[in-house]
């Protein structure tokens, strides 16, 4: 049944020719065969959701086009009363007494949230994040997680899955366990672009509980056509990638050209500083966000300690993983007296320069095209810098709050499209032109 077109399946559910339970059964079966990608999966809870949605459908309630479809969220997104440890020993056992706005919206739209998918610790860089594999394995139809500087886009492409990181503020961060607040954004991963779009529409929207949430809805793409539009290949990114990356960019460029778009090469020298600025800002913000994990209120607490300071030191030393500790150390230093001006403040100024340069580039083009990974990406990197370097072509979109869509290609590489601020739906239309054979319905 999973081979069937999912949107057609959803339509069959709404039409009553197929029950939600029937539609979901093959997915659940696959999770039960191998649940290793899930940090939590509760068959009972899923059954209750299925019954509730079926009842709503029977009552004639108008639900979203994805009603009855099986989805999952990563373990950095809070679900009420269920362990949400964000992939960290530090937060082991934490059961939020509330639910993330994204989850509420998914449930309101009638989707069945089957469980929580594992991520790398706090979903910081996406190395080792296996969540997108659940799509490949047919365990869920689409997934939602947090992308900060490529931490979801990167593993998605590695695993041959599409991912859209929306415009910053398009989806509420309420209930998302924060890593770097100014860039964290609930993102969608799916096997095709139609599902990416449907998923994005389900979770996007203003939320008064998130002060950075956009007040106006994302404008529809309407009858958008790429014909006559301009696509800029980012020179600095192209120079850094491998053959697979270059091939992916070329294939996308050809597809754009075939669709009537004008493709050109374009230089934004400022993006060379994106990784450095991103690292400083993200780790500085993380040092604030992660400070609440003190071993006292919830999560991990060291079993033996001498005094309060010792409790903090041991709990955090034992609770956080190596890369996380590197991040917190670096971030704290970047904000310290004598460093703030030269690092954090400077990084914020660089961020402003990048934003201005990218904005200027969009005076010439309607969409930016880049490869996803640079050459020599090391997916086994154990250090912070090693991991972050892999994502360096993805950080500019995060720093500037712009929507970014990644399309997987061969050899674990792919292309990234960066769109205009808030024009996520137009960006998805560009995506369909770049990958016409896999754009779904």
């Amino acid at each position, binding site marked *: 049944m999973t081979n069937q077109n999912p949107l057609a399946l959803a339509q069959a559910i709404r039409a009553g020719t197929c029950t939600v339970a029937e539609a979901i059964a093959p997915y659940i079966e696959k999770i039960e065969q191998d649940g290793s990608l899930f940090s939590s999966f509760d068959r009972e809870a899923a059954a209750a959701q299925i019954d509730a949605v079926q009842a709503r459908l029977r009552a004639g309630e108008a639900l979203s086009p994805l009603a009855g479809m099986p989805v999952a969220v990563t373990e950095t997104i809070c679900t009420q009363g269920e362990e949400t440890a964000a992939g960290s020993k530090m937060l082991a056992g934490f059961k939020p007494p509330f639910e993330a706005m994204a989850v509420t919206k998914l449930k309101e739209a009638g989707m069945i949230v089957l469980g929580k998918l594992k991520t790398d610790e706090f979903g910081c860089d996406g190395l080792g994040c296996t969540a997108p594999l659940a799509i490949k394995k047919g365990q869920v139809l689409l997934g939602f997680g947090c992308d900060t500087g490529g931490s979801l886009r990167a593993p998605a492409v590695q695993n041959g899955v599409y991912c859209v990181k929306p415009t910053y503020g398009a989806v509420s961060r*309420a209930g998302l366990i*924060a890593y770097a607040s100014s860039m964290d954004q609930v993102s969608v991963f799916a096997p095709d672009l139609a599902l990416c779009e449907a998923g994005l529409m389900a979770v996007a929207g203003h939320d008064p509980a998130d002060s950075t949430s956009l007040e106006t809805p994302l404008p529809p793409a309407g009858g958008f056509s790429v014909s006559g539009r301009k696509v800029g290949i980012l020179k600095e990114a192209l120079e850094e990638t491998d053959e697979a990356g270059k091939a992916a960019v070329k294939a996308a460029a050809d597809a754009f050209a075939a669709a009537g778009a004008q493709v050109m090469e374009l230089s934004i020298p400022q993006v060379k500083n994106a990784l450095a600025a991103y690292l400083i800002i993200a780790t500085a913000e993380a040092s604030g966000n992660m400070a609440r994990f003190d071993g006292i209120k919830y999560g991990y607490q060291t079993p033996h300690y001498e005094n309060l300071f010792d409790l903090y030191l041991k709990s955090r030393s034992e609770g956080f993983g190596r890369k996380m500790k590197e991040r917190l150390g670096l971030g704290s230093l970047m904000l310290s007296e004598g460093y703030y001006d030269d690092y954090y403040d400077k990084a914020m100024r660089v961020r402003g320069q990048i934003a201005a340069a990218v904005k200027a580039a969009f005076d010439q083009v309607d969409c930016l095209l880049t490869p996803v990974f640079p050459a020599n990406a090391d997916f086994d990197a154990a250090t912070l810098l090693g991991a972050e370097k892999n994502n360096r072509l993805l950080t500019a979109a995060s720093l500037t709050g712009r929507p970014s869509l990644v399309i997987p290609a061969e050899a674990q590489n792919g292309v990234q499209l960066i769109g205009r601020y808030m024009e996520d739906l137009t960006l998805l239309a560009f995506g369909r032109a770049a990958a016409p054979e896999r754009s779904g319905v």
Partner: protein
Amino acid sequence: MEYEVVIGLEVHTELATKTKIFCSCSTQFGGGANTHICPGCAGMPGTLPVVNKKVIEFGIAAALVTNSKINQYTTFDKKNYFYPDLACSYQITQLFHPICVDGSVEIETSQGKKTIGLKQIHMEEDAGKLKHDPFTDSSLVDYNRSSMPLLEIVSKPDFRSAEEVVAYLEKLRSMLKAIGVSDCKMQEGSMRADINLSVRPLGSTKLGVRAEMKNMNSLKSITRAIEYETARHIDLIESGNAHKLKQETRRWDDEKGKTYAMRSKENAQDYRYFPNPDLPPIVISDEWIERVRQSLPELPEAKFARYTQVLGLSEGDSRLLTGSKVLSDLCDHCIQAGIAPQTAANWITGEVMNLAKNDGKLADDLVLRKESLAKLIGLVEKNVINRNTAKKVLAEVYHKDVDPEEYVNANGLAMVSDKGAIEQMVKDVLAANEKVVADYKSGKTQARGFLFGQIMKQAKGKADTKLINELLNEQLS
């Protein structure tokens, strides 16, 4: 040698909002431990702050009454430090763009008037409270106070005596109370002060070594602590031990009347302030400031000036009336209702205050419907009832919240103001008391009082005194 003490103050006032600064938990004082908390103010991951607009309005109001310059682009920052009472391990406060800067407060002491400069006022959240449990020898944390809204008012080092400090705190308290920003109850901790103090030779422009005394919450201890600490500094300087003065935080022990050095930190703590990315900058428009300005009530000082200069009341009456918002509200309402200022003042400082005193209440705690008071005085002014009746009716209004007009009608208390009827009573009384009339006419003026009393008795106390006097004078002459 002569010395001068140089003092700067950081005053924290808890704001009188209904909800906390970044969540919708109640700000009510008291309640069981952790009963006014939510995932947000308890520091759980996944929660986000949403600023309470009322806090910003109170900040604007405080800026306006302290002649401060409002930063129309104001931001919140994170101040990072670990302590179990701080739920998120950072405090949301304002460092880079506080809501206002460069204000001033005028104080008056025995030395005359003086202007105290304000460096800035900023908005921030309070921390929770640690409670030691002696049974388990462990500490427990209560987050009820976590994220309570505060304004921190930072003065310049402009104070030269404890008297100035006390005058300033009293002035701040009266202003902030008057504009409804804070109840400023020091005993409940809703107003507390950090004192930065140093001593230097008189005439010197260089500041001495600074000691800080934190969380002082009574004017009496503040005075004593300043006096003690000043003397300690002078003693050390005079005895050649100035080098022993350290920049440190000292704790005031109210029972022993001494300050003690707190465990000193080797290095000043680095709070790693940075802009809070969860809270976008707040832009305060001219219109918003104007709206707050329009909604500000009159300050006690301006009110006092109006009472003495415009209403022509005595300084004594004015001080009493403007010292309490309840009394001045009563007075202003009566005047608005057309009662002469002095008449209103007399009733309030006299009869109303008497009732409150007998009821064991302070002016600010007394409850009296201002419409009823105005109506009652109006009845006297219109000669519907006389003063004596009015006092009795006022007591009923005060205790039972009756409507004075209805009460007077229901109990037939309206005065006999029928001139013919009173004239007849006067004639009857004079005829029945020929001897007294004769006494009066022979010069015993007090006899007139007896006659007046007899007439009022006939009228069952409800006659118009003025009318009786007029008719009595007529008949006796």
